[in-house]
């Protein structure tokens, strides 16, 4: 008997069910309605790989510019932000040529040589975190590791003191809540708190850049200090984008890759015997639980995409998490399989001019984390408690992940 697939109309969207596991909904969208109009808004969601990839590649007609996007703010929030530099969303929220110009400023920080230089420091930071719980025989991999490592690594990438990681984590949390507030509205007090945090982050970046003027060093802030013809506001905005993109998505990857691998003991045993398989684990994890679940675009004029056309004046949500499970591209797409033929074809890092510049760093953090965990935590396995995904429709990251191992 064929399985009955649920229809799009059977789902309540948005809902907690879809938040926890959006994939059955995405499957219905891909089958019935690849260009899905969002109720009450001039917006569509693209769910098929072909459309998402085509939209990402077509920056000339499908724009990332978000300067037209304005949100209303309370007088309290406006008063706080009066002291702030404009949040212009450089890099992610702009198109070439300005996007290219800004990307050129950060490209050197992600060159293979620089990433290779960071590796030893990432290993040391990861080892220090594991030292904190190795003797216990159990830990929450998300709260005691995955949520902590990326902000620490950002201190090395930026070239700021390691002790800054706590404030970087706090700024990230606040910025994330702030940027998601259109989808998840905030309490008025929380909104004011986030606005304060934005102002203090901007001041922080300004101070650090000032302090580096004499000895910039080979790091991202050092590159920004030396950049000419770029305003301080743009530099601050770049720092913000790098921080959020580097922290939130990477912690999603670190949590999901561990969970997925341990849920598949046969594949985990192969990895124990051959650590060289770890990069494949990371790629398959990026595909099946993509940390960045969607990208947004703006369509100024009528445009064609492979499975439809769209009148100008619409927004587009590119459902990366759906594209990466498209059965037209990935065989048995819900199966976690580190040997799959289509391993590298996922769109987890995007495609085209916005392709994730930090992908080499994210991959390295992912590989180092699994290598060290398997090396140092004997007979590593899932603990009893169930884990849930955080309530954020933009990114996919676990709230917690209980692990156990044989402590000596």
């Amino acid at each position, binding site marked *: 008997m064929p399985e009955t697939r649920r229809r799009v109309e059977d789902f309540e969207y948005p809902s907690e069910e879809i938040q926890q596991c959006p994939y059955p909904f995405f499957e219905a969208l891909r089958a019935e309605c690849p260009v899905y109009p969002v109720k009450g808004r001039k917006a569509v969601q693209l769910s098929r790989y072909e459309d998402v990839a085509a939209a990402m*590649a077509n920056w000339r007609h499908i724009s990332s510019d978000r300067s037209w996007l304005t949100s209303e703010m309370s007088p309290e929030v406006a008063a706080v932000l009066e002291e702030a530099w404009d949040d212009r969303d450089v890099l992610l929220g702009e198109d070439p040529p300005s996007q290219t110009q800004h990307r*050129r400023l950060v490209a050197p920080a992600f*060159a*293979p040589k620089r990433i290779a230089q960071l590796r030893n420091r990432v290993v040391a930071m990861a080892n220090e975190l594991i030292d904190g719980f190795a003797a216990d025989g159990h830990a929450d991999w998300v709260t005691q590791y995955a949520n902590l490592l990326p902000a620490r690594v950002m201190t090395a990438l930026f070239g700021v003191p390691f002790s800054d990681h706590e404030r970087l984590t706090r700024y990230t949390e606040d910025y994330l809540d702030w940027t998601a507030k259109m989808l998840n509205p905030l309490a008025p007090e929380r909104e004011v708190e986030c606005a304060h945090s934005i102002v203090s982050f901007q001041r922080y970046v300004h101070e650090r850049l000032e302090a580096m003027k004499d000895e910039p060093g080979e790091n991202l802030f050092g590159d920004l200090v030396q950049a000419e013809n770029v305003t301080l506001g743009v530099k601050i905005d770049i720092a913000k984008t790098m921080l959020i993109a580097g922290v939130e998505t990477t912690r999603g990857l670190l949590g999901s890759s561990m969970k997925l691998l341990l849920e598949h003991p046969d594949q985990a045993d192969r990895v124990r015997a051959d650590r060289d398989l770890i990069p494949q684990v990371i790629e398959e994890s990026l595909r099946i639980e993509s940390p960045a679940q969607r990208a947004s675009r703006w369509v100024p004029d009528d445009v064609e995409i492979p499975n439809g056309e769209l009148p100008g004046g619409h927004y587009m949500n590119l459902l990366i998490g759906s594209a990466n499970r498209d059965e037209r591209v990935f065989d048995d797409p819900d199966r976690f399989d580190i040997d799959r033929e289509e391993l590298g074809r996922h769109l987890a890092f995007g495609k085209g001019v916005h392709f994730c510049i930090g992908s080499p760093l994210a991959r390295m953090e992912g590989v180092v984390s699994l290598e060290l965990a398997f090396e140092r935590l004997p007979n590593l396995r899932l603990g009893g408690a169930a884990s849930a995904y955080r309530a954020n429709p933009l990114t996919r990251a676990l709230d917690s992940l209980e692990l156990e191992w044989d402590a000596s």
Partner: protein
Amino acid sequence: VKVAVDLAACECHGQCEIVAPTVFKLEDETNLSWDAAPPESAREDAEAAVVMCPTQAITVAD
């Protein structure tokens, strides 16, 4: 100037075409064409493409 592209590494993100449009051209989403021996005047742009390529697929030599 000699320009080489490692097609095994190239994922056609198109950064090269934007910074060095006289040297590189994305024919479609999976095909890149390029001038393997552009004039000296294109050197600076070609070198920018080396830095900008997210998969480090481009090399420029004399």
